[in-house]
């Protein structure tokens, strides 16, 4: 776990060590098993992150390995975060210390939940993800530099050499993160008169009289 502050304001770049987490279709039940959802705040969730996978691997899970202690970037494969919509999954990862995720692809709800916390989920070519995971495994102490404006990730390693890969993020989420407008609630609340106008034209809110 790391003690980084939670995201606030513009998310333009991030520097930190990374954890490679290999495997497709890692679902939110694995990220945070359902028994940890019995809570009315998100506070204690970090310890539940990958709890069952970690028990199964008895200390060999990347989240338990000494060389990844304090790492803040997760490098995953395809369809990461599929399954249940539970926001407890990104909350558990954030509270563990994760501040960015790079992967081949993400489940949509997971992606949106992360965005709402200021945690970018960046996609990269499968070949690049594999290279990145191998490079991190070869030198877990190396730092990644993630640039959300240039959409690139750099690994600064004495052992495996510096390397730079492109990453992708749709323009909308990119703008929201870089501008610090990823907390969407205030934007939504600001359009109250437009909301009233929309409600006024919805047949089911108006006795179906507008057909």
């Amino acid at each position: 776990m790391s003690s980084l502050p939670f995201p606030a304001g513009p998310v333009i770049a991030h520097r930190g060590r990374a954890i490679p987490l290999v495997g497709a279709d890692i679902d939110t039940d694995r990220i945070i098993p359902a028994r940890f959802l019995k809570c009315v705040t998100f506070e204690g969730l970090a310890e539940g992150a990958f709890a069952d996978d970690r028990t199964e691997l008895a200390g060999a899970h990347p989240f338990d390995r000494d060389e990844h202690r304090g790492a803040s970037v997760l490098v995953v494969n395809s369809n990461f975060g599929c399954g249940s919509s539970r926001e407890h999954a990104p909350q558990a990862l954030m509270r563990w210390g994760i501040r960015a995720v790079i992967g081949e692809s993400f489940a949509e709800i997971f992606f949106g939940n992360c965005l709402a916390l200021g945690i970018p989920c960046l996609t990269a070519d499968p070949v690049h993800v594999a290279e990145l995971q191998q490079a991190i495994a070869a030198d877990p102490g190396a730092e990644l530099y993630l640039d959300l404006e240039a959409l690139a990730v750099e690994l600064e390693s004495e052992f495996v050499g510096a390397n730079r890969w492109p990453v992708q993020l749709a323009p909308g989420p990119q703008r929201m993160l870089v501008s610090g407008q990823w907390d969407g609630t205030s934007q939504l609340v600001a359009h109250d008169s437009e909301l009233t106008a929309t409600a006024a034209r919805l047949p089911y809110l108006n006795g179906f009289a507008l057909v």
Partner: protein
Amino acid sequence: MSAGTLYDKVWDLHRVAELPGGATQLFIGLHLIHEVTSPQAFAALRDLGLSVRHPERTVATVDHIVPTTSQARPFADPLAEEMLATLEANCAAHGIVLHGLGSGRQGIVHVIAPELGLTQPGMTVACGDSHTSTHGAFGAIAFGIGTSQVRDVLASQSLAMNKLKVRRLWVEGRLQPGVYAKDLVLHIIRVLGVRGGVGYAYEFAGPAIEALSMEERMTLCNMAIEGGARCGYVNPDATTFAYLRGRPFAPSGDDWERAVAWWSSLASGADAVFDDEVRFDAAAIAPTVTWGITPGQGIGVDEAVPTPEQLDPEERPIAEEAYRYMDLVPGAPIAGLPVDVCFIGSCTNGRLSDLRAAAAIARGRQVAPGVRAFVVPGSEQVAAEAEAEGLDAVFRQAGFEWREPGCSMCLAMNPDRLEGRQISASSSNRNFKGRQGSSTGRTLLMSPAMVAAAAVRGAVTDVRTLSPTEVPAPALR
């Protein structure tokens, strides 16, 4: 780009504004909340000093954490009690109706909203639960959201959304006897994969879909999310209207005719344009069972666990993981695999027609020795209707437990769970590792009738070999 589809029409009608990030602000017509994903959203609302924008468009119930044996308060589990008490306090503070335990209207959120007539064609429906896709059965655009989005809907009755593409799944023919909507959707996910629907809304259409009852359509749309599609829907038709008529929150009086006229106008027209289309033949589908750890790892009950060579190279790593976890041998037939626990229930298959189909198999037979089988109605209303028909007695006489409504063993948030390496035949929707409460527990997804067949035989059984009216058959095992 899709055009002229129900999805497009509903989307356009609910647009509030375009947002700086490129997303669209979409009005949410019905917001369903429950005890698991709402407490942190209400807390965030308080922190922001905001109130609930449309409490009358917000409806609450309790389902995930409720015990299905004794529902007396306080619950034995103090955490479960705290979650329910928190929901009650939040609903009271914000003027939100809560259909609580004993109200006659409590149940799994995706079961009660349709049966109360809250879910209607042309609405946008959101809920902090991925199986919100269920409500698409009515021609609503319904999708699951995370807790931050629950906060957003509470605060603004709207969401920032990106428009999906629309894929039409056209299903010809008719499902054969013994083959249900559950088999159809497991088959679709088997063919298109668990990621196949990412970025799409699924429109289910064609003769086989039109022939489905509303409850079957709900089963189908419920699992759209398991195929990666955040929402799935069926165009509203006479079946939809007949289901809704007379329900407590459905339009009535003069409103009814106007409502039907409007609902009818929403269906995708003959000239609708889809981003993609895939065709299926319902008649070719067998009762389908999952053998692995994703809902896409399904096979006909008469097939064998696929060998790596039979799979696409990219599916092999997850298949290898599944062989190990499930302790199954590639090439072995799935029929005859012994099961320990049989669970009939969940938002996928916990409705009256599901219980009827299972009871028809259970009637006059006995749960096999060593098997634990139980039936959990999806709501208090389903329970009452089933009991009025005597289904509870049929199940009890056959050796099934008859429980109180809730999510039960669909997930491990209440006392119902697998122990150790137990293997379950389950009518729920997810066979992920650990989903049913034991980190080594195993789940085989199938239709409720197939679960009942597995219960009486003690092993995975082709339900088509058990006649629903046959005299008691001796249990094998």
